[in-house]
């Protein structure tokens, strides 16, 4: 299996989940792709078959944003929050709350961009209000839980493979 670029997922502490990915583009372009609604809806789509009929993202801090995804069966999934910081071209901070809350409270998403030689590293940090909230996310077997568990599980499976040929 060849991955063009590696996606790193880790849990550096009790509250956070961190996703890191590098892009072959200068920082100001990645920044635009992260904050411009017409661009966001072209890539932030999730599983095959989902589209993003609602994508509202303000260009200034202090304003709300809203995303709604829809699949072919018509099932919708919405989330939104407030943009807390907008620092072109390096940093966006937002709150995050899903319509059907599956973890208590809000999470805070921090997106940071660092450019080196025309390559840009995107770091997304999702910070939950409490360890409890993050653990609910972990337990629910959802997106973040799966991400956080991935590296640990991978290690475990490697060990299993080594132990049981």
């Amino acid at each position, binding site marked *: 299996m060849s991955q063009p670029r590696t996606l790193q997922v880790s849990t550096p502490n009790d509250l956070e989940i961190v996703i890191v990915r590098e892009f072959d583009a200068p920082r100001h372009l990645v920044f635009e792709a992260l904050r411009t609604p017409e661009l966001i809806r072209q890539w932030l789509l999730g599983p*095959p078959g989902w589209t993003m009929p609602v994508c509202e993202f303000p260009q200034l801090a202090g304003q709300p944003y809203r995303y709604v995804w829809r699949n072919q069966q018509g*099932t919708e999934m919405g989330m939104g929050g407030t943009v807390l910081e907008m620092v072109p071209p390096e940093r966006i901070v937002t709150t995050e709350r899903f319509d*059907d809350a*599956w973890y208590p409270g809000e999470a805070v998403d921090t997106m940071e961009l660092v450019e080196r030689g025309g390559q840009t590293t995107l770091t997304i940090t999702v910070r939950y209000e409490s360890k409890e909230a993050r653990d609910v996310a972990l337990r629910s077997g*959802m997106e973040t839980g799966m991400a956080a*568990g991935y590296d640990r*599980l991978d290690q475990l499976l490697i060990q299993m493979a080594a*132990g049981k040929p």
Partner: protein
Amino acid sequence: MNVSLRRTPAPDRLDATFMALADPTRRAILARLARGEASVSELAEPFAMSQPAISKHLKVLERAGLVSRGRAAQRRPRRLEARPLAEANEWLERYRRIWEGNFQRLDALLAEMKAMDPHRTRPAR
């Protein structure tokens, strides 16, 4: 910023698997069992923990279907059950593929944007 799989039904057992994996001692127990079956006292040995404390962890792992008990009457060795882990890993892999899918779409978009970028400049050295 996160696209979740929330609408995809998560079987209860998957929840149980992730809950069981959320604890470092339980992960260590599974790692130990990956090398071969072991009794409760053998499992308790490397940990600064009483056998009842280890038994509690084992109960969680058994409920998640990750560990089963052997028949040998006295020892009742525990062994690892690989299938729930494989199922959980499938979900994780799927999650990862989704983010990878998002980011690969973003790669393609950025390539287009780069080609059309009016402020195209060489990075300063």
